[in-house]
């Protein structure tokens, strides 16, 4: 017997029944998209095509078109890469770690969050590829292929190579996890399909799912196994991304707190992006009963926890830099805060540490507008965090004669724009053709957490 305490508030509001769930979610796949969808799609396609020009030029001319110089050899490329990978952490955290913690509120948001994760990781993967210059040869350079394939062995000691393994594994597992969850829902859409084309397509996508007890039993054990596999991956990916910097001896990069602090920052930014997207989706698709204010409040609480962990890490770094007594360390942090990039540092501190603290107020963390605004602020802050770490640590070289600044070119911006184009185009396609909420899982909690059930008692 499962007992639910009276102090818990229902997760699904509006007295939804199991039938309502199917209807409310499937109708978005079956109906013609609203005008706002076409508008949104047009904007993201514009981003995509403008960005495509920049990407084509970068590939044609080489990465000399970026603003890099001999001192700042890494800037927007890796900043954007880390930013996108970080965003790609929320989905799998929601679907894997929150599953292990039996957090039922994840069920309304996991589908969209996982989709977002996958698209964000695709955007992230774009940057190492474009950075290789001749990206058509990239495969030979990053995969450990024997010398007979025409290249030298990769450097197994390099964290950049560990990244290749970590991220490709993470991407594969996330994709499989997401897709397994989609299968029962595809079958529902298939069964409701009015025309042949969608019946065939969704039929193929659902792999002949019939919903038998055996199907469900396998579905559940696979989910649990994948959750177990994905949990260490959520931690390992950003840990290894942090190794890209922390294994070096550059002051400002080499610090032992990086792995857990990067993971926390990744979850922080990932949840911010989930909120940005879901607040719009829930409004346009009228999903207020499924993604209730309570869901938003819980996500905001995760933002405040992870944001505060990041804040403590910033302060720890500052303190230990002073405490270490190493002049280079002390200078690196002093220069961050007061040097020519002080404005980037100030933006980072404000957006990541100060403003998320507003979520301590219940009024703010349950306000949709405040949440939407702050979620964007967080993502700006997290971009600046990576920019600060990367560029301010590099721009003061060991030789003062090499000191330089970094100025982005049109192609730095354009390549970044391109990833926005990819991200939003994919997300809008997903929102149109795939069920944005995991119907099967939400149905499983209708009984124990919806308001109608309580009223009947």
């Amino acid at each position, binding site marked *: 017997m499962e*007992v639910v*305490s009276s102090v818990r508030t229902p997760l699904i509001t509006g007295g939804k029944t199991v039938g309502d769930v199917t209807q409310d979610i499937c109708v978005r796949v079956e109906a013609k998209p609203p005008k706002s969808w076409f508008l949104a799609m047009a904007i993201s396609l514009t981003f995509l095509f403008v960005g495509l020009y920049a990407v084509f030029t970068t590939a044609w001319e080489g990465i000399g078109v970026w603003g890099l110089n001999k001192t700042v050899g890494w800037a927007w490329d890796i900043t954007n890469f880390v930013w996108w990978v970080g965003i790609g952490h929320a989905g799998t955290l929601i679907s894997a770690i929150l599953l292990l913690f039996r957090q039922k509120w994840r069920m309304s948001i996991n589908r969209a969050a996982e989709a977002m994760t996958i698209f964000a990781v695709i955007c992230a993967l774009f940057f190492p590829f474009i950075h290789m210059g001749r990206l058509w040869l990239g495969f030979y350079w990053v995969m450990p292929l024997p010398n007979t394939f025409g290249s030298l062995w990769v450097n197994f000691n390099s964290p950049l190579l560990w990244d290749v393994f970590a991220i490709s594994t993470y991407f594969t597992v996330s994709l499989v996890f997401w897709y397994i969850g989609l299968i029962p829902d595809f079958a529902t859409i298939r069964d409701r399909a009015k025309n042949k084309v969608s019946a065939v397509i969704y039929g193929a996508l659902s792999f002949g799912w019939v919903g038998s007890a055996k199907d469900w039993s396998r579905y559940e054990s696979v989910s649990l196994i994948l959750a177990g596999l994905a949990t260490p991956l959520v931690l390992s990916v950003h*840990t290894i991304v942090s*190794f890209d910097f922390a294994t070096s001896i550059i002051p400002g990069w*080499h610090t*032992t*707190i990086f792995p857990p602090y990067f993971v926390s920052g990744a979850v922080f930014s990932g949840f911010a992006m989930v909120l940005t997207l879901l607040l719009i989706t829930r409004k346009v698709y009228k999903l207020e009963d499924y993604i209730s204010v309570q869901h938003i409040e819980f996500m905001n609480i995760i933002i405040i926890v992870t944001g505060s*962990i990041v804040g*403590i890490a910033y302060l720890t770094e500052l303190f230990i830099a002073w405490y270490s*007594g190493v002049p280079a360390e002390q200078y690196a942090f002093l220069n961050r805060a007061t040097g020519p990039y002080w404005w980037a540092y100030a933006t980072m501190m404000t957006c990541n540490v100060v403003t998320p603290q507003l979520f301590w107020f219940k009024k703010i963390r349950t306000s949709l507008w405040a949440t939407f605004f702050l979620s964007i602020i967080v993502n700006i802050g997290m971009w600046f965090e990576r920019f600060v770490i990367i560029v301010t640590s590099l721009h003061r070289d060991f030789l003062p004669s090499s000191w330089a600044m970094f100025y982005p070119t049109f192609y730095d911006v354009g390549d970044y724009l391109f990833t926005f184009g990819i991200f939003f185009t994919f997300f809008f396609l997903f929102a149109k053709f795939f069920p944005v909420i995991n119907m099967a899982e939400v149905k499983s909690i209708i009984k124990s957490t919806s308001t109608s059930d309580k009223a009947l008692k």
Partner: protein
Amino acid sequence: MSEDKFVFTAGLQKKLLIAKLIGIALVVVGILFVAFGGHGHEEAAAGHHYHWLHRVWVNLWINNIYFLGIALTGVLFLALQYASQAGWSAYINRIPEAFGGWIYVAFGLTLIIFGLGNYAGPSHFHIFHWLDSSLYVEGGENYDAIIAGKQGYLNLPFFLTRLVIYFVLWIMMFRFIRNESLKEDINGGDSHWRKLRVYSTVFIIIFAVTSSTAAWDWVLSIDTHWFSTMFGWYVFASWFVAAIAAITLILIWLREQGHFMQLNSDHLHDLGKYLFAFSIFWTYIWFSQYLLIYYANIPEEAVYFLERVNSEQYAWVFYVNILLNFILPFFILMTRDSKRHTIFLKIACTFILIGHWFDFYLMITPGTLSENGGVGFIEIGMAVIFAAGFIYVVFRGLAKASLVARNHPMLEESLHHHV
């Protein structure tokens, strides 16, 4: 449900007293060995005379930090249950709640042991090297520019102020939580639970800051030159998994004494998952810190690990630490069944508790006793004394109230817990 009440019988008290006496006897035997074994008064590398009392002071400090951490993170565990609105654990909350009583004791112990270990000598021994005033005399033969640079943080008045602030904050928040929980037993209703959530959140915030700074003060600053940004979280990880092991062991013991009769294997499974996950978390933090320092190989950082791995006294502890805290718990707790059976949990918890004691031993001893450290009767005896004292305080706390917070709004969820 009939009242589940723990009675701290005279027989039990006697057993703990005997354990304490055995501990004292072991320490005395250990001291005799060290004092008359020909290694009692050697010239240490730093020029200070080594005396067996130094080893006693250091052991007091190791156990004090270790058991304080278990008490503190036990309360943290409790606070996390409230703050996250966890249902499964409501049945067993009183156990970590009883841990808090040790914080009062530790306040006194910390001050006393700090005084003994730094000022009672003999031969000007300091657990904290930075207390040596000759380090700050510019032009003096002991002048140390690096330590002098840290004087703004590492000075006695500021250190003691911080120490008092930590304890006052911890004790204050623990009292709020404990009193509210006891009031809930009498009054019932949701309002106490809501207040407990607020207090717990405040405790978590305070803990998040003070656990790191306390770790810097009390452990990191022993190796005064060395620094690592991860250190605060490393100490936290070590404490926390030890506290969960202590909670689990005490719960299983109470169950075997005929308490907690509605405890089911799903509760144990969840505790087992906690142990498994946080053993891995500790390893993750350990490995991240180690790998980054190993990989970059910067002398002022790498020296910390070199002093441990390349030493006769400590190399084996370095490996035992990983064996007891990662390899054994990882394989023992890996399967679902082992997390649901008390025998496996008992084995794993014992390894974890011993393992994390070694972890603190390895953090504190090389920087204080250098080549004069060892593991012998003094170490075992002192750990037994502290463990008996800790259990005594926890049992007294348990006996003061019902073993189950009977009006906890999540109690029914917890009693019917099923995964």
